[in-house]
């Protein structure tokens, strides 16, 4: 534990972990996240479902009895006139079906409502009207067993999707893969933005504190950069582990409250069953972790290079879009990659190091040929090493240029200086 690298890592790590702001944010963020998860469910449980009273003025005499209410809508046939119903504030919705409503429903049916109906209620009323009119029309054909025939020909086609390129032929649900991919992408995006900028700020802070010449006369810039990136990376891992534990614990505590909502959701259940597939999960986990770490390393090195080239946080703010834009591009590209994980575009964006971590997050849950994973990872980690080397050079030249930007020639010359 006495190499300069480990000393820098431990300083970066301990300095951050001991700060009050770290402790507070580490404890508060999961609370907010759990609150976000629970709030909608809790609100639904607490608030009484609102029932819309619908009065139907049915001049056909055939529609009203075929409308069936649910929890949110109740239908009632009314003999009253429209004008008098309008005065009745117990009635939320009035449906007027004129005599020729069966033949020309588009023009002969009018719906009046007090305030906005809401999408769910609106579509429910529409579907009830459609069904009722269809029913009346079917009756008009007078075919005795037509309903039974219709029931018999109805199909619900849900099929098991089996991967030909996998030896174990495990079934994979693309909905679950999609979910995992989106989740991982968002997580990586946040991770890079939060902790990459932390690396940037840490380097700029040293410049502002005038401490950097003391540091640079004790340690190589490359070691300093690497130490900062790894130290802050460890902070990130610590924070995420704590978050995971807290969120996990809260979820277990909260689940009974949400109870049925989760258990009855078939997609959620499918996700859980998918996740219990051991070998798939293990390789997914390992590769995901490697790309996650690689993505952090690559982008934090870019942030470090930006910080090396500027003197203050204002200049850095403008330059940091150099890092932010590719991250966003990567996330956007992976949206299209998710839809077509084996396309040529997908292969390329998952090899270019700027987008590869995000693209691979998107592709991995669908399964990626091993050679592509190997090439992508090699390119990513090699780029990281190159960037660290480069930004150590920029750092060294950047500090001592009296605020002038280093030229490419100078960076090359520096690279040769032993």
């Amino acid at each position, binding site marked *: 534990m006495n190499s300069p690298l480990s000393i820098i890592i431990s300083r970066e790590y301990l300095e951050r972990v001991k*700060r009050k702001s770290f402790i507070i944010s580490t404890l508060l963020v999961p609370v907010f996240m759990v609150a976000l998860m629970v709030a909608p469910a809790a609100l639904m449980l607490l608030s009484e479902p609102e029932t819309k009273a619908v009065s139907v003025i049915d001049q056909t005499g055939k529609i009203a009895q075929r409308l069936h209410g649910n929890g949110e809508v109740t239908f009632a046939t009314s003999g009253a006139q429209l004008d008098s119903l309008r005065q009745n504030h117990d009635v939320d919705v009035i449906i007027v079906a004129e005599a020729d409503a069966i033949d020309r429903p588009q023009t002969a049916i009018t719906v009046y409502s007090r305030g906005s109906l809401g999408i769910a209620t609106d579509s429910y009323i529409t579907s009830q009207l459609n069904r009722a009119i269809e029913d009346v029309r079917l009756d008009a054909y007078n075919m005795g067993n037509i309903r039974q025939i219709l029931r018999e020909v109805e199909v619900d086609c849900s099929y098991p999707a089996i991967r030909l390129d996998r030896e174990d032929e495990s079934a994979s649900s693309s909905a679950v893969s999609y979910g995992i991919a989106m989740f991982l992408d968002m997580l990586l995006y946040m991770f890079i933005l939060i902790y990459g900028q932390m690396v940037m700020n840490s380097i700029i802070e040293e410049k502002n504190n005038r401490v950097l*010449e003391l540091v640079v006369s004790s340690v190589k810039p490359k070691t300093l950069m690497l130490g900062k990136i790894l130290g802050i990376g460890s902070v990130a891992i610590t924070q995420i582990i704590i978050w995971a534990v807290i969120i996990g614990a809260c979820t277990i505590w909260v689940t009974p409250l949400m109870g049925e909502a989760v258990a009855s959701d078939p997609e959620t259940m499918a996700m859980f069953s998918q996740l219990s597939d051991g070998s798939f999960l293990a390789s997914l986990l390992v590769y995901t972790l490697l790309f996650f770490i690689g993505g952090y390393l690559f982008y934090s090195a870019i942030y470090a290079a930006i910080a090396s080239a500027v003197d203050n946080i204002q200049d850095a703010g403008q330059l940091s879009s150099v890092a932010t834009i590719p991250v966003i591009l990567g996330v956007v590209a992976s949206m299209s990659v998710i839809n077509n994980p084996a396309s040529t575009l997908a292969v390329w964006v998952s090899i270019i190091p700027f987008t590869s971590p995000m693209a691979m997050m998107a592709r991995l849950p669908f399964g990626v040929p091993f050679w592509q994973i190997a090439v992508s990872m090699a390119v990513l980690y090699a780029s990281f090493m190159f960037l660290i080397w480069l930004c150590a050079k920029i750092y060294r030249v950047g500090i001592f*240029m009296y605020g002038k930007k280093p030229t490419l020639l100078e960076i090359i010359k520096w690279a040769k200086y032993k």
Partner: protein
Amino acid sequence: MDHILQAHDICKNFVGHTALDNVSVDIPRGKVYGLLGPNGAGKTTLIRIINHITAPDSGTVTFNGHRLTAADVPNIGYLPEERGLYKKMKVGEQALFFARLKGLSKADATKSLREWFDKLQISDWWDKKVEELSKGMAQKVQFIVTVLHKPELLIFDEPFSGFDPINAAVLKREILELRDKGTTIIFSTHNMGSVEELCDCITLINRSRNILSGGLHSIREQFAGHNYEFTFIGNPDMLAGALNPFGSNFTLGAIDADGNATATITCADSQAARPMLAAANEAVDIRAFRRIMPSMDQIFISAVESYNSSNPAKQ
């Protein structure tokens, strides 16, 4: 002479600006070497090159007989002019961090840090945060961090800025003690008083060039001329008459409370001193006689001005 460090023919250009133009310095081992020069002359750039922070465009730096490499950096202690500390860290932790970066083990570093903290009477700062310290207090910590790992060569860039006279004296004492133990010290400053007190040799850099180099005594000798001062009791006119054949510019000073008068005279060469003193002795009561040596301030100004007037600035 044994040189710990030799920098030869160093050139360094920044965009549109030459920082060092063919500068050579030879730093003798075990001496305090003053690096002087007006603001922006290139001193700090030279120090950074010696310290392996910046590379020269051309020229060689030799350390202990071999080419300076990154591996020599641990043998050099550098107190930069632009210095700061991590604000949020505690003093002791921070000193320990830098000491360990220089390669000391945690136990060794703690032990010698405690000794130095005691020596400079700052032991009770160990658990304070740096942001609570004054500038001078932080400087003491930085000084300790610089010398703690006992490097062969120490480089101090304006070490006394921010210090009160008492603490500056403490620091000077420590610097001389380090020299007496065999450490070589490069010392860059604008404070000529401290140069006279501390330096054995100096180099004066002006407009990116080394315009004056050598031992402090020989340089003062070189700039001294043949000016002499008499402190005497007696008739000034008698003295003036007696000295007339030996020199020019006879100037009479004020008479102090005890009746001592002073007079100065400029001679053509040092040959005149002995017969002049004999003649003066006949004329008045001589209390003191000395050759007037120029102060470093005067040498600095006259060297820089004569260089600048004979080399008008390029546009």
